[in-house]
């Protein structure tokens, strides 16, 4: 038994049959489009329909590429000091100039992208894991437990996040792990709230009741049946929160609570540039633009993802 042609193929065959019946020469079927051209068409359609999201993806891709290929792209070692060339203006051997230790600014910016992305991804992943679980369990259990947990989250939310991060890193010490912990801590409460809201309605749905009737454990219901239904919402917020994490990491590094020198971080570079703002203003400008590019890209992608998952938000923000 042969399957009836569907979609575009059916339309093409139908057109050929109609043409034959009308006495006109049959339209020869077009050769299948090359996969590359097809892909290019899809990309172009996406770019024209969602220009902001496409621009955001491009900005993020640039930073990710800079981080991944830093060893090949960077013209110098980021920590190599060349005192003779200290505070060289942009141009010549040093495309973006050098800092007060004679280190190449471009190379440090490329390597600095690694720290920003690493801290943002790990801290938000940790916040999603911890906050998401808290919110899910809290809504699933419900009652006074839910009330208590959410009040605890409200207390955490009542701290200015930068101040909380600043004090936690200061008390624990400026290490990469502590930085990730502090940023994750500031984001746990929002993710608990984001995860909780949909679970409140999901837990009343028939498929969850069916799971209970079949004797599934609460853990299985939560992580196999509830989690996939809320994951997209949580991940979309995760992309927006990554922008906040990049900003917080850069701010803490600027205050002097980031990863210890000589490791290149954008916030740390801004701090060094700020100390030399009169002699070498470019030292503050380049890392500042790098931070702006990444945060803007993440915000654009986050907005686009949110619009895609929530049709009510299309064009609303």
């Amino acid at each position, binding site marked *: 038994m042969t399957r009836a042609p569907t979609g575009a193929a059916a339309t093409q065959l139908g057109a050929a049959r109609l043409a034959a019946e009308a006495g006109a020469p049959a339209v020869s079927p077009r050769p299948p489009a090359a996969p590359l051209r097809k892909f290019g068409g899809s990309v172009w359609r996406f770019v024209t329909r969602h220009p*902001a999201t496409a621009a955001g993806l491009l900005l993020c891709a640039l930073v990710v590429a800079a981080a991944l290929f830093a060893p090949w792209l960077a013209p110098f070692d980021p920590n190599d000091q060349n005192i003779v060339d200290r505070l060289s203006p942009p141009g010549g051997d040093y495309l973006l100039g050098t800092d007060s230790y004679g280190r190449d600014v471009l190379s440090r910016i490329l390597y600095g992208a690694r720290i920003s992305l690493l801290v943002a991804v790990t801290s938000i992943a940790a916040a999603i894991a911890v906050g998401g679980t808290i919110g899910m369990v809290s809504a699933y259990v419900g009652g006074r437990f839910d009330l208590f947990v959410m009040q605890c989250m409200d207390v955490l939310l*009542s701290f200015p996040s*930068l101040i909380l991060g600043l004090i936690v890193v200061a008390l624990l010490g400026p290490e990469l792990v502590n930085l990730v912990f502090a940023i994750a801590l500031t984001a746990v409460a929002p993710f608990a709230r984001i995860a909780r809201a949909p679970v409140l309605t999901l837990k009343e749905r028939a498929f969850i009741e069916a799971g209970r009737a079949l004797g599934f454990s609460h853990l299985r219901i939560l992580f196999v049946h509830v989690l996939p239904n809320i994951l997209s919402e949580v991940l979309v917020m995760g992309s927006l929160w990554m922008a906040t994490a990049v900003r917080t990491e850069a701010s803490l590094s600027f*205050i002097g609570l980031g990863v210890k020198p000589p490791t290149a971080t954008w916030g740390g570079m801004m701090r060094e540039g700020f100390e030399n*703002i009169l002699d070498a203003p470019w030292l503050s400008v380049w890392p*500042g633009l790098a931070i702006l590019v990444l945060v*803007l890209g993440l915000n654009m992608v986050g907005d686009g993802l949110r619009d895609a998952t929530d049709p009510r938000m299309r064009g609303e*923000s």
Partner: protein
Amino acid sequence: MILYVLRRLLAAIPTLLAVLTLVFVIVRIVPGDPAIAILGDRATPDAVAALRAKLGLDQPLWAQYASFLGHSLSGDFGRSMVTGRPILSDVGAVLPHTIDLTLASLVVGCVIGVPVGIWAALHRNRAIDYAARLLSLIGLSFPVFVSGIFVLLVFALHWRLFPVIGNAKLDDPLDRLDKLVLPASTLGLVMAAYITRVTRSAMLAVLGEDYIRTARAKGVPWRRVVWRHGLRNAAMPVVTVVGLYIGILIGNSVLTEIVFNRPGLGKIIVGALNQRDYTMLQGLMVIYCFLIVVVNLVTDLTYGLIDPRVKQ
């Protein structure tokens, strides 16, 4: 209204107690002995024991907690480990600068954000709307210290329109204003970006309501429909965001004060971090939390003023 205010005040008490408990826990979970952290590894055991006794760390945890709560609620935040001065007097000396900055930024944010948000909503999907959305996205993507440094480079160092140092004389209003322009604009523009987005969204939602259509059908002038019926109903989410953002504003003021070299809570906190002044840090956390609880309370009371239904 008095009953509503009393209810909100009572509701703030458990939040305040919980926040104070969290501050106590955060300071205690630090690995190692705070006395050794303050005095250094080479301190003699006698010196460490004396400092522990002075800080009350030799007492049981519940006694430390009770003492901390009692002192905090009575407004006694202790003395700085470094200067020996009462924390409240150190904070009181610079608090007007931080309040100046926060309020001025709030004004800049509202004066720019609300009209631009309304304008964008009224011209939905037109060039002005796209421009407002793009600019607000750029505005909230700028970390405040980055925009601060850029503003400083252009307006203070390149064009020399404003002073670089922001230490104003409190008794000279003109000097205060002059040194407030750049920092307040830096913080205020970020706030304007948030307010623009929220005002636009809220106005779009309200302008689609039936009562707006009814008002227009009755022949109410468009301007009156927008300002009287639209904006008043769209104000609730805007006030919520402004209330929430004041917390972020207070946090961001730390960075602004560093960039513009202004005195304020931010500079004190960074000084305390560098000098490992634990009592000052604990006191500052409590003061920040008091400020946030007060801001939340004022936001709740504003709801009651805007929407009479909230008071029910």
